[in-house]
């Protein structure tokens, strides 16, 4: 479903991605782990077509994201949901309007149908009763839930999560992970999740990939990651110090 081939990207001479290869099968979720600033968000934005590669390709359901334009890009993006790190809710709109916004702008649904859809989505993420609030009035966990509701309102086939639990307390973080898990069971989307929640995340995802120095250091199932002898991976999973840094 998602295939990344030999992806290179640099900003002003700063090489962020140096030949990333990755594949995610239909209906599966891949966890992407790695140090802060190593280019995980950049990688996700390439999958969504928000950034263009310097070299290499990103194929989503067989379509090369660099070359899609107009109608085709619009159609593909309609199948794609993105949970941004900061939530990216529009702060000039209430929670209800935020979730309703893409439906109002892109579909011909009538107002009462939109209301039904939005209330349904808000119920799924447990935000009923907060629909009149503005993003600035919500806690971090509620912002993530509202952003989930907006991303899921279009029934996406592909979901990209950028650090869905970072900045939340462990309890709230766990409820967000549970929510992602239950939505995945219900909607069967293909997903990539950037996360630091190791080893908690292993229950939710099918595979894990670790990105380091612009390349995929290791890719495999949760067990393979846990058994890895690589010191950087070990340090990440168990929280120790990697040998080659110290």
């Amino acid at each position, binding site marked *: 479903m998602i295939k990344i081939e030999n992806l290179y990207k640099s900003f002003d001479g700063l090489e962020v991605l140096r030949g990333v290869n990755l594949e995610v099968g239909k209906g599966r979720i891949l966890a992407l782990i790695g140090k802060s600033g190593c280019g995980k968000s950049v990688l996700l934005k390439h999958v969504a077509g928000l950034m263009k590669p310097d070299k290499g390709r990103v194929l989503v359901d067989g379509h090369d994201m660099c070359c899609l334009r107009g109608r085709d890009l619009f159609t593909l993006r309609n199948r794609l949901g993105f949970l941004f790190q900061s939530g990216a809710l529009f*702060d000039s709109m209430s929670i209800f309007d935020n979730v309703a916004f*893409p439906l109002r702008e892109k579909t011909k649904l009538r107002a009462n149908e939109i209301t039904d859809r939005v209330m349904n989505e808000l119920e799924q993420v447990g935000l009923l009763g907060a629909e009149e609030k503005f993003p600035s009035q919500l806690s971090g966990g509620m912002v993530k839930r509202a952003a989930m509701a907006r991303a899921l309102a279009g029934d996406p086939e592909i979901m990209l999560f950028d650090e869905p639990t970072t900045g939340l307390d462990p309890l709230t973080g766990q409820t967000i992970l549970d929510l992602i898990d239950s939505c995945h069971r219900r909607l069967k989307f293909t997903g990539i999740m950037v996360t630091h929640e190791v080893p908690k995340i292993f229950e939710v995802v099918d595979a894990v990939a670790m990105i380091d120095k612009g390349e995929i250091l290791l890719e495999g199932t949760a067990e393979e990651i846990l058994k890895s002898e690589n010191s950087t991976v070990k340090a990440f999973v168990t929280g120790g110090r990697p040998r080659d840094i110290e």
Partner: protein
Amino acid sequence: MDLVRKLGESAIKALFRLGRMGIFLAKAFAFSVTPPVKLSLLIKQIQFIGFQSISVIFLTGAFTGMVLGYQGFNTLSRFGSDAFLGPMVGLSLIKEMGPVISALMVTGRAGSSITAEIGIMRISEQIDALELMGLNPYRYLIVPRLLAAIVCLPLLTAIFDVIGIFGGYLIGVKMLGLSSGVYFGEMVSYVEMGDILEGLIKSLNFGVIIAWVCCFKGFHTGFYTGFGAEGVSKATTQAVVLSSVLILVWDYFLTSTRIFL
């Protein structure tokens, strides 16, 4: 050798930025003249850029006119021609002070918040979210502000001119004793349609400059200024400075070449 290379490098970078800004403006115009234009957003921006600037324009217009009345009267009476105070105040306001000072005030009041608002949307990934929804950020963010500035600046300038002329009247006639008939009579006979048109065209130009520079700086927050709150504050400062400088430079250019006049 190193100096030459550095100079060349920054020259090329500057050229690239100029090109980016040009493309940005071209895109903004292209999306402005093709439907759909988001009417509700346009009205909101007219309310923000135009309506909410009226009080500032009122105040600055009044004081500019009043000071023109004082200085004009003092200068003119040295030559015994204080009867021409009306045309002096009127022409200075309509051709120069009105468009330029209004534009500078709008830059400070509305332009800075345009940059900050769009900049925050950029760094908090709201612009990415729009794009991801398949919605064109230019249509939702840039076009309403550009059109609103084009609509509002001439109107604000007109208000500024009228208030300023009354400020001059207050000083010249009510305080310094010029006759009211002379003040307005001479003004009417010396100010021509061409002068008013010149002021109008200038204010239209300045409207474009404000929206263009402030939207561009906000939209590209992070690319040149670094991310985070610091990036937004840098972008805002740059937008206000660049917009103000461009307004003054372009004013000189328009006046001296009479290109659109």
